């Protein structure tokens, strides 16, 4: 068999855990091979072994049939292995070409020969249908285009095997479609691709074979043509998983949140929200769909009091809460699962138990006359940890030591427990695996069924369509359309998100 990459019986240990245990990954020349697994299953570790960042304790790596020792990333580069990182490694004020040649500049008499480099970049770009302007600055081009620059970077360095690390996480549906085309072109030109992902749909669409790992152990490799998403999910998680989020029909009641003609400026002082109107009723989940950077962050910050708004009104249960302090917003009945759980959601150096009272520590019974009652705090924390299945050695463990999914469960427990009338969930499942996602969706729907209003912001269209009762499309700081998730398609949403006009009766 003609394998271009073989990782045989790889074992990698870290103090206390085995990250990879006897994993075998064999990639054929000219195929798109998916590496599927939950978060923390050991995908990244395996790829870092291949890329020379970690040395395995056991096992053998073969490239094109020859046994190799990859002790650092330069060797991986020389062997034709290239990595397209999830978080782009680009210098924003530099041009595309400058970024691509960074680290392997062609010089002529001590000066960088930018002309030759530009020509070479253009050639590669044309060959693989990437349509990248070599002279454009990174800060001026879209996220999808930036990703292509990352791809170009690996091709420029002569990569034969490209590793894509969760490449679709940041893209719009249209961009995902284009990326898939690019991947197919790459294969046609004789490259091989390893796609790291936990999105089953993408695997079904583009991959030839898929290797599944679970909890550091290789579960096996299957042909995509002989499997289906349900089987893959069970392989990955180790149990049956339901995809369609089960929920009864929503029965919206009174208006909980009413936003009218809201205007907010972003951190640079430019308008981010331009006269936005949005209403959410008790007992419904409204999902916000939009390409990142269209005012989502500013909208949530304005509602929660983290950012001052210029004008307009934000009514909660009929009472104005615009430009309230975050504490007053919280006390008025708003819960907020923040987008960035490490930055906003948790004090990572505090025990997880103390994080459970981050907004309520000053209230009784947690505090009496300014003196904390740790017994009550940890009693509360213990209850929430049990109820929300937060897996932690104890409530005294620092939040930092918990996995992302368990950190998120803790935050959700804390927010839901305050019983807010409006629950804002910003990317609540980002970076989480299928099991945790299922749990979180259930909890959001439970809130809705309890007569609460839920505002869901997500960049995963599947999530927005699955969980929401109504979808509000945001574009350039305005809600441009409100659609029914049962009647819309990803294509339609994608177009709306990209700014196409649509006449909505009654909106």
């Amino acid at each position, binding site marked *: 068999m003609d394998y271009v990459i073989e990782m045989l019986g790889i074992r990698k240990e870290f*103090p206390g855990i085995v990250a990879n245990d006897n994993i075998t990954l064999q990639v054929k020349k000219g195929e798109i091979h998916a590496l599927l697994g939950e978060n923390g299953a050991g995908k990244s570790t395996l790829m870092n072994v291949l890329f020379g960042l970690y040395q395995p304790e056991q096992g053998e790596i073969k490239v094109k049939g020859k046994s190799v020792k990859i002790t650092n990333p330069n060797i991986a580069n020389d062997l034709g292995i290239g990595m397209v990182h999830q978080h782009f490694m680009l210098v924003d004020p530099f041009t595309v070409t400058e970024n691509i040649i960074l680290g392997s500049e062609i010089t002529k008499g001590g000066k960088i020969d930018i002309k030759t480099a530009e020509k070479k970049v253009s050639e590669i770009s044309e060959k693989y249908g990437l349509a990248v302007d070599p002279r454009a600055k990174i800060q001026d081009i879209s996220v999808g285009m930036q990703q292509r620059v990352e791809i170009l970077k690996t091709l420029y360095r002569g990569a034969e095997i490209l590793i894509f690390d969760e490449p679709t996480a940041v893209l719009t549906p249209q961009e995902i479609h284009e990326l898939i085309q690019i991947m197919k072109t790459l294969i046609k030109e004789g490259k091989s691709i390893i796609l790291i992902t936990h999105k089953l749909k993408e695997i079904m669409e583009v991959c030839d074979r898929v290797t599944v790992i679970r909890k550091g152990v290789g579960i096996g490799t299957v042909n995509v043509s002989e499997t289906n998403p349900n089987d893959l999910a069970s392989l990955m998680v180790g149990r049956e998983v339901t995809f369609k989020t089960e929920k009864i029909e929503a029965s919206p009641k009174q208006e909980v949140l009413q936003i009218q003609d809201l205007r907010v400026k972003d951190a640079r002082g430019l308008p981010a929200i331009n006269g936005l109107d949005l209403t959410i009723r008790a007992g419904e989940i409204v999902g916000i769909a939009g390409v990142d950077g269209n005012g989502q962050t500013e909208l949530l910050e304005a509602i*929660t009091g*983290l950012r001052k708004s210029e004008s307009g009104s934000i009514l909660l249960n009929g009472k104005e809460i615009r430009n309230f*302090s*975050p*504490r*007053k*917003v*919280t*006390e008025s009945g708003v819960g*907020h699962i*923040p987008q960035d759980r490490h*930055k*906003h*959601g*948790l*004090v*990572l*150096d*505090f025990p997880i138990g*103390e994080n459970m009272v*981050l*907004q309520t*520590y*000053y209230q009784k019974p*947690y*505090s009496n006359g*300014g*003196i*904390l009652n740790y017994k009550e705090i940890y009693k509360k924390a213990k209850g929430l940890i049990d109820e929300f299945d937060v897996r932690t050695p104890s409530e005294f463990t620092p939040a930092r030591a918990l996995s992302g999914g368990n950190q998120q469960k803790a935050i959700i427990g804390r927010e839901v427990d305050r019983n807010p009338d409006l629950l804002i969930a910003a990317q609540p499942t980002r970076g989480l695996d299928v099991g945790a996602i299922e749990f979180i969706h259930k909890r959001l729907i439970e809130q809705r069924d309890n007569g609460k209003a839920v505002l869901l912001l997500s960049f995963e269209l599947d999530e927005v369509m699955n969980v929401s009762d109504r979808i509000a499309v945001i574009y350039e700081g305005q809600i441009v359309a409100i659609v029914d998730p049962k009647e819309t398609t990803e294509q339609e949403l994608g177009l709306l998100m990209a700014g196409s006009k649509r006449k909505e009766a009654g909106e």
Partner: protein
Amino acid sequence: MSSRMKNIIVPILAVLLGIIVGTIIMLITGYDAGAAFIALWDGAFGDIYYTGETIRQVTPYILAGLAVGFAFKTGLFNIGVEGQLIVGWLAAVWVGVAFELPKFIHLPLAVLAAAAAGALWAFIPGLLKAKFRVHEVIVTIMMNYIALHVANYIIRTVLSEKSDRTADVFPSASLRSPFLEGLTDYSRLHWGIIVALICVFIMWFILEKTSRGYELKAVGFNQHASEYAGMSVKSNIILSMVISGAFAGLAGAMEGLGTFGYASIRGGFTGVGFDGIAVALLGGNTPIGIILAAVLFGSLKVGALNMPLEAGVPNELVDIIIALIVFFVAASYMIRIFIDRIGKKGAK
């Protein structure tokens, strides 16, 4: 190895390494290291008089260490302890010489005046940081110089007639204790050590037991999450600086009302405020750690005075050893890696 164990072992190793390298330096420069260390020990604890002097020296170190450590817990780097100490010293002496009152009013008043002056001096950088995001390190350094020269000016023009020192404070404002002096063979040991230990308790209590301390620590660890949770980052920054400055001001009161009993014109800084940074660093910013580190630094400083007399070794060598200890604590990353290596080998 647990991280708690490491936090204890790293400073101890740093001290040992500092002493080892100090020994090597003495051997290279031809001094008798053994005699030097014996002299150092004798100078710090060899006699009840020296022990008294050591405790006296430890007192301001504890308070300066608390000042740095408290601010650090809230994510602030208070380099201005020196200046806050000087204004505290001045304020305490001012109250001490200005009038005579019954002791139970006068002494607390003088001590509180020092705390208030230090707090005010730290309030300014705190306010500038909170309102205009001016970095506290720069402002506090400048405030040190302002404190030094303003204090000198006031001593010369207001508190004396163009003299280079004030009068002695009235006995009713003095921390001096004939009892403690008698106990320690007439050292300058005074009641200040009690004040310092009370302040250690206060720091521990605020940080570990109160909801305000919870806020201060949260802001120190993660400003974004604190703001999200509804805490006021700005007022916590200011409050942290004010409390830190109050500790520093008290350190000044120890010198003004205890050790010296007056304030004098200074050509330069006392150094206690800066040593406070080292004390807090070595003590890991924890109350108990700060006491231990202050004891170490205090005994080194006092014991060093005996080295030229008894062993003929210049006492500057102790400054080198202190510098080395600070270096090894600052470079604790190195030591941690070293511990990890050993731990791994042991496990295999």
